[in-house]
């Protein structure tokens, strides 16, 4: 039985699990006495959940575990999401809403049993659930609540990444257990250069896109709200994106679905043309979630030195050294961004094979290597 196999694996205590839990509770969330910390994940993250419960308890705070076998990010489970009347999906249970508006910290641990589980739920239902969660998600984006998203290595996640579990565990922990203060200092020097820039141009295969970050301040992600972390990002001026970008190197994945070969054309900041070689309906469906879904909420630049390969997992892929990513939808308000949407869909563009990044006409990165 599968459960037995897992039980055996758990009996081998990997010391990196406790180190990760400590990093999450102390650095990422900085849990304070009396806090209520929501932990969303699947039962497969058990070793980490156990260490977290202990670390949170030791700080005199409450852990509120919310285990679900699928859709750990969405606060509902698939059997319910598939059957519930549509009008029920439009509003969170009042009790859940209250919890989502009053928790002090939240941790989402991705630990999929089936990386494609979300695909069972029709996009229309997913959009409704996303919209219902919007007030809860807004608190996180506005940093009114401490939060962090982290990956736990499971068989399914390893398979999706094309690795054995042992290999994938090394990959995950190597990317997470870094000296984040040192990483932060290194990234800050790069971000400073962008802060002095008003126009960024991204050039690459099938791609020539310019966007303005004038008046916007870069945020350096140095091991707080994502684990692994390692990027700096901006909210581009909402009506500034002009040109075309082809996400031809990697699929753009969202809620368990892949869109291959997505190509977006922007005019005055808005997606006016969206095509894909596979999953185009899903892409267009998500763009139609609301008005803000067609505009950019984020330009991010990946800098994690231990993430050198694509693993079909955004949390890692967007941090990959030598890549940039653009997010359709909501921006983080603390970056000066104004775009509002129920979605936030990051798509990653590889610049390591002939790509270029320009800041106000100065070439700053070529083939994914910094020139500054």
């Amino acid at each position, binding site marked *: 039985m599968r459960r037995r196999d897992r039980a055996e694996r758990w009996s081998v205590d990997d010391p990196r699990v406790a180190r990760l839990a400590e990093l999450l509770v102390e650095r990422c969330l900085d849990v304070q006495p009396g806090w*209520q910390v929501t932990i969303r994940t699947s*039962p497969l993250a*058990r070793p980490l*959940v*156990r260490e977290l*419960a*202990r670390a*949170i*308890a*030791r700080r*005199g705070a*409450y*852990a*509120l*575990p*919310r*285990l*679900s*076998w699928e859709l750990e990010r969405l606060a*509902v*489970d*698939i*059997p*319910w*999401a*598939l*059957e*519930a*009347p549509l009008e*029920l999906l439009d509003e969170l*249970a*009042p*009790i*859940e809403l*209250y*919890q989502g508006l*009053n*928790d002090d910290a939240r941790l989402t641990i991705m630990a999929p049993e089936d990386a494609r589980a979300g695909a069972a739920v029709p996009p229309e239902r997913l959009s409704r659930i996303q919209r219902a969660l919007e007030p809860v998600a807004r608190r996180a984006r506005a940093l009114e609540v401490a939060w962090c998203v982290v990956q736990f290595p499971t068989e399914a996640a390893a398979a999706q990444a094309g690795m054995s579990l042992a290999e994938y565990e090394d990959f995950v922990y190597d990317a997470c257990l870094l000296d984040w203060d040192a990483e932060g200092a290194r990234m800050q020097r790069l971000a400073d250069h962008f802060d002095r820039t008003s126009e960024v141009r991204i050039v690459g295969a099938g791609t020539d896109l310019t966007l303005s970050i004038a008046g916007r301040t870069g945020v350096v992600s140095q091991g707080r709200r994502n684990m692994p972390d390692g990027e700096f990002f901006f909210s581009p001026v909402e009506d500034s994106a002009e040109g075309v970008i082809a996400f031809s190197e990697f699929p753009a994945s969202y809620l368990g679905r892949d869109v291959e070969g997505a190509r977006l054309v922007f005019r005055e900041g808005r997606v006016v043309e969206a095509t894909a070689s596979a999953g185009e309906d899903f892409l267009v469906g998500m763009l139609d979630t609301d008005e803000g879904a067609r505009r950019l909420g984020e330009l991010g630049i990946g800098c994690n030195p231990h993430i050198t390969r694509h693993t079909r997992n955004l949390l890692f892929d967007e941090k990959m050294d030598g890549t940039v990513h653009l997010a359709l939808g909501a921006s983080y308000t603390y970056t000066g961004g104004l775009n509002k949407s129920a979605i936030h869909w990051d798509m990653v563009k590889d610049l390591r094979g002939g790509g270029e990044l320009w800041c106000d006409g100065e070439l700053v990165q070529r083939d994914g290597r910094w020139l500054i």
Partner: protein
Amino acid sequence: MPDPRVAAYAELLVGRCIGARPGWQVLVATTTEARPLAQELSRLLAERGAYALTRIHFGAAFPVDRDWLVAAPPELAPTLPPLELDLLGRVDASIFVLAPEPGGEALAEEPLRALRAQALAYRARGRRREIPSVRCDFPCPAYAERAGLPLAELEDVFYAACLRDWDEWARAMEPVRERLARASELRILGAGTDLHLGLAGREWAIDDGHQNVPGGELFTSPVEESVEGEIAFDFPAFAGGGEVRGIRLAFRGGEVVEATAEAGEELLLAALATDPGARRAGELGIGCNEGITHRLRNVLFDEKMAGTVHVALGDGFPQLGGRNASGIHWDLVKDLRDGGEILCDGETVQKDGVWTIPA
């Protein structure tokens, strides 16, 4: 292929036990061991237009966060987070499905107390009947191990006990209930047993699987000071994580005056010493569930087994006229199937575990 009995069991819980209605917020608390049931409950609640507030924990005896309460400061451990208290104050119904993990390490005394305090807080409104609430089990490997049965056989007994036509059964038992309700005294005879219990002014209830799963018993609270005689219990009883076997009790004037056990006597004596009410009988129950063909070493099932009676030490049922109050309610089960007898005011109503009056 999922076991169709899981769906039928979920339907029993959502339909009959709590009667979920559109717009309700229903707390479902269980463990990872009960996955198929948890998912079916979610589905059925959605079908009924109700919200499922699902709280899955790793397999503790009661579905709470065991890792947290073991590590929490002692003053914090027995408390629930304010957000959880808010939830408990507002839910429209609750379903607690117990499904411990196999071989879960026993908790030390303090965390065990914390776990009990949390469980009491979770169940408080249901116990006060403010909301429909059910506490039930799921047939999992730990329960199979406890019952000494392969899991498949445990599942057979479990579902045979739970999935019955409860309305039909309750109708059939009504004449028996009426006969018992007319009696002023009940006498239990059997090996090492001759116990008299006064019933004057007390009501009898039929447990027909509403907020107790499985159902299948007739029960009352006997007149407290009237219990006289001896009783020897055949089934093992469980207390404080330990087992007590071969319990013999002698009652005088309603109070236990002599208590011995072949094994675990210290647990028995400790339970009796809980408070003054712990030495009195709070319940007399008669098991009538024909589906329970095997002792599961789970008192919720064992006490319902047809052909058995049970006496609970401790807390009684005020709604049936009971006046005894205690921090414990400990059901002890006596098998009457081999030579036992129940008499009402001197008339035999059951012999060898079989009713001799129309049922």
